[in-house]
């Protein structure tokens, strides 16, 4: 059965962004439906906020009190999103409302606001180890996935997509790679689905493993940021571990995001010159790098610059209270993103992929986890965000 027959193709040419959001909305999606989709996301986010603050108070002193106290808002948001997904799928409304599930926009706005709570000095200090980790991890995992994909007999383009997705930043890397190597739409759909299918459990498993291993918040953050493929899932897992872990995880992930353009341009050159052996194609240049650079990274750094400067001009208590408002706004945008992840999760295209790409992706994820843990311990053991 082809992707079209499975009902995948209309949604999947740009199947999703790095957060898992479909970048290609259904053709029938109209403005009022998009607005209605936004209302659904906002309503579920409001319920998430209520549960996050209300449940621990409600269950305090009961047998479930300790459990409720450690459940963070991403858990409620994703669970409600998945529940909403099921309801909207059964009622046949999900595709129409999907225009309002703007995971990428929500997560990037949230990350720009997160920049306000991170001192510029922390970003500068973490940038070195984050860059080393990103370069080593991306290179090693990309090459391993490429090699293993070859052993499993995968098509070169699918190998490139899977390698980019698992080693850099999930679906946006797969999209960038798909553009670079002229991949087919169903290959992008498979890659996007695998990213989300592996990222969702990682949101909960990695924070749990970090606790089991007794990792410091900074090392746990670096591990989460270096391993989980989608930026939204990294943020969710980081938030579950704690604020310090979230800050380091974000810096590591943003660094990986920033390197995406380099990999995309390198892939373009490799496929044009080595795989297709075309001599007439223009060489990729600096303009291509800028086009593929994720611009929200600049917003993240600018927010940190503004907040760091502003905090030097006001009394500490006033500064803390004001940045707290920015943090509340950030939490809202992250909740909107996590709800959207749940609303958009699809398993159909994963079934289409067959076992070989899934096997390659799983093996690459395992290598990513082990190598990423080693690098996080090596590079971030003495690091502190305070």
């Amino acid at each position, binding site marked *: 059965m082809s992707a079209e027959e499975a009902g995948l193709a209309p949604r999947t040419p740009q199947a999703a*962004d790095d957060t898992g959001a479909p970048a*290609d909305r259904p053709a029938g999606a109209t403005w009022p439906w998009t607005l209605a989709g936004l209302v659904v996301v906002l309503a579920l986010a409001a319920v998430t906020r209520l549960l996050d603050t209300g449940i621990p108070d409600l269950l305090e002193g009961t047998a479930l009190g300790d459990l409720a106290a450690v459940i963070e808002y991403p858990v409620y948001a994703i669970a409600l999103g998945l529940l909403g997904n099921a309801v909207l799928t059964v009622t046949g409304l999900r595709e129409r409302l999907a225009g309002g599930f703007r995971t*990428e926009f929500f997560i990037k706005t949230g990350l720009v606001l997160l920049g306000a709570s991170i001192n510029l000095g922390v970003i500068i200090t973490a940038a070195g180890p984050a860059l080393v980790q990103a370069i080593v991890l991306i290179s090693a995992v990309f090459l391993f996935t490429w090699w293993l994909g070859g052993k499993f007999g995968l098509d070169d383009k699918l190998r490139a997509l899977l390698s980019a997705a698992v080693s850099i930043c999930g679906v946006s890397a797969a*999209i960038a790679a798909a553009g670079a190597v002229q991949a087919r739409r169903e290959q*992008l759909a498979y890659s996007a689905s695998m990213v989300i299918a592996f990222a969702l459990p990682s949101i909960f498993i990695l924070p749990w493993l970090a606790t089991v291993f007794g990792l410091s918040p900074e090392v746990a953050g670096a591990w989460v940021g270096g391993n989980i493929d989608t930026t939204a899932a990294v943020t969710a897992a980081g938030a579950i571990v704690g604020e310090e872990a979230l800050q380091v995880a974000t810096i590591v992930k943003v660094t990986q995001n920033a390197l995406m353009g380099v990999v995309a341009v390198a892939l373009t050159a490799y496929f044009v010159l080595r795989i297709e052996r075309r001599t007439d194609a223009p060489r990729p240049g600096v303009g291509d790098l800028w086009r593929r650079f994720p611009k*929200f990274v600049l917003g993240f750094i600018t*927010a940190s610059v503004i907040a760091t400067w502003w905090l030097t001009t006001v009394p500490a208590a006033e500064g803390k209270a004001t940045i707290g408002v920015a943090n509340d706004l950030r939490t809202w945008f992250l909740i909107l993103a996590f709800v959207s992840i749940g609303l958009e999760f699809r398993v159909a295209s994963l079934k289409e992929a067959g076992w070989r790409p899934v096997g390659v992706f799983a093996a690459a994820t395992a290598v990513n986890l082990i190598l990423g843990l080693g690098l996080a311990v090596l590079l971030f053991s003495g690091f502190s965000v305070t």
Partner: protein
Amino acid sequence: MSKTEADHREEPPAPATGRRRSIDEDWAATILGLVLLVLVIAGVIPTGLVP
């Protein structure tokens, strides 16, 4: 996989539009995030307003 590969061997690459949308969302998210931060710092969005 083989059948789908054969079916779509000449499928035109589509990511260009998605990439443009992604880039637009990048800038939109950047601008909104920074505007909100400035409004917070300027006191237009005061403490206690955000639930």
